[in-house]
């Protein structure tokens, strides 16, 4: 029995129990820690140094304030980007807006920093500039993912609505908007990561308000590596929590989406 359990660790779609999963997680974390402590890279600060740096920043450098600034940008940007992207993706189902949708998707190839000048002419440096920039940057990616979800809806589903006699709005709501919500949520969760890349660059560029990005910039320019790594780990922690929230919300709101298709 015991052997069976262990062999499923390397089996395709092998199933493991919760205690084993927890043991695995701790094992991997331990491995990471050992690797870190005994790392030959001399530039790398030790775990203790990083923890001390984090404590110092919280106690003396208003890290909590910077955290709130960044989280506010993160959440507001994510909400705006989601709303804007959903709108552009939904509109893309209409021939009139198809090309607009395509154009937005193509913009994701253009280096994101290239848009700063456009936003500088529209806003002064501050929160609105950062939000607008982040929203725009994220939307290019979100629209691409969301449009792909909409395009993968089988034609049969539209025809089912059609033969039932649904009108345009009813069909849109029943076939396009509602059933894709869990997938849209996945797209947002996936792209939240890109959002963090953008947030740190935006905050590096527009530093007056502070924020984690501004802090990283400041500490790395003064070569305080323990602080920099501490901040990076903090971002990692936030990302893990955000991911877990998305998974939880999906299970709560869309229970059917976790069931596998059987036929």
């Amino acid at each position: 029995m015991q052997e069976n359990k262990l062999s499923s660790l390397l089996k395709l779609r092998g199933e493991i129990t919760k205690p084993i999963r927890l043991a695995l997680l701790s094992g991997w974390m331990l491995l990471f820690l050992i690797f870190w402590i005994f790392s030959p890279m001399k530039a790398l600060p030790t775990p203790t140094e990083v923890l001390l740096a984090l404590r110092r920043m919280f106690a003396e450098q208003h890290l909590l304030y910077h955290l709130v600034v960044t989280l506010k940008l993160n959440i507001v940007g994510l909400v705006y980007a989601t709303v804007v992207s959903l709108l552009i993706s939904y509109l893309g189902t209409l021939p009139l807006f198809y090309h607009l949708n395509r154009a937005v998707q193509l913009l994701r190839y253009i280096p994101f920093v290239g848009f700063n000048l456009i936003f500088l002419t529209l806003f002064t440096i501050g929160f609105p500039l950062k939000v607008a920039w982040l929203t725009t940057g994220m939307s290019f990616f979100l629209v691409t993912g969301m449009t792909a979800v909409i395009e993968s809806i089988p034609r049969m589903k539209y025809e089912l609505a059609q033969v039932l006699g649904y009108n345009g709005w009813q069909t849109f709501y029943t076939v396009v908007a509602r059933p894709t919500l869990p997938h849209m949520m996945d797209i947002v969760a996936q792209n939240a990561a890109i959002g963090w890349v953008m947030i740190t660059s935006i905050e590096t560029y527009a530093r007056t308000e502070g924020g984690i990005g501004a802090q990283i910039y400041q500490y790395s320019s003064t070569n305080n590596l323990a602080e920099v790594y501490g901040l990076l780990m903090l971002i990692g922690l936030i990302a893990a929590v955000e991911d877990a929230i998305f998974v939880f919300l999906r299970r709560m709101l869309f229970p059917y989406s976790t069931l596998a298709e059987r036929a």
Partner: protein
Amino acid sequence: MASYEDCVAGPLEGHVERREALLKLERVTQSFRMNNGVELVVLKELDLEIIDIKFKPQIVSLLGPSGSGKTTALRIIAGLDKPKFGQVLIGDGEQGSLRRVRAGDVGVVFQRYPLFDDLRVVDNLVEPAVRIGKMSRKEALDQALQYLDRFNLVRQGYSWPVQLSGGQRQRVAILQQLITGKKFIVLDEPFSGLDPISVSNAIQLISEIAHQHTLNTFIIVTHDVSAALLISDHVYLLGRERDEKGNPLPGARVVKVYDLIAEGIAYRDNMEDLPRYRELYKQICRKDFPLL
């Protein structure tokens, strides 16, 4: 208007009262441009007329070999595709008046039984009933639960569609079309991929639904000869006609109609034991069934 109580159970006694046409295909022609640029004529001047039979459940079959254009015809009947020429006319409730069919007039049970996967089974019935069947939410829920009860789906009422078996899915798909008050319901190959027992169950189920909803007409699209004979009152054989040399002409049409009421085998139990059924079956399989 006829109700369930008016419906005569069992075989027809005496004469059959036939009334006006309910659905009419007039010279329906459909073709597709294939990848090599050649135009493939699938249906050529297809004529078909479904006549209302008073107080009787009505099930007709469109029988034909694979690739003969049954699904093509079904999509045109349902208003999903426009034919290149010709038209489909449908009775709009008033005696004798026909108009062109529109998508939404004819219910379709597609071969793979698509449902709304983000709605529980009961809501797959309630939502269309409220939107299209013009019921209040409460009426719709009562009706849906009654249907589910009658068709042995009560325990699945609050399941998600992906949790249903194939047969359960089929029933929900049929009920979904019924509850919106569709006068016509077309089923595409409802017996394909089923074992013989399931086929006879499906036949029984569809007949049962038809008997309880004598105001509906069911059109079964199938290549299963025995199922078509067992379930229908009329069978329309779809195929290509031949020229003098025996070569098929382009485009399928109705090459033969079997009136199973006139043959005396419609609406009967144990039809498979009737000599006339066996004769017809042999005749269709050996002689009439068109090769493509």
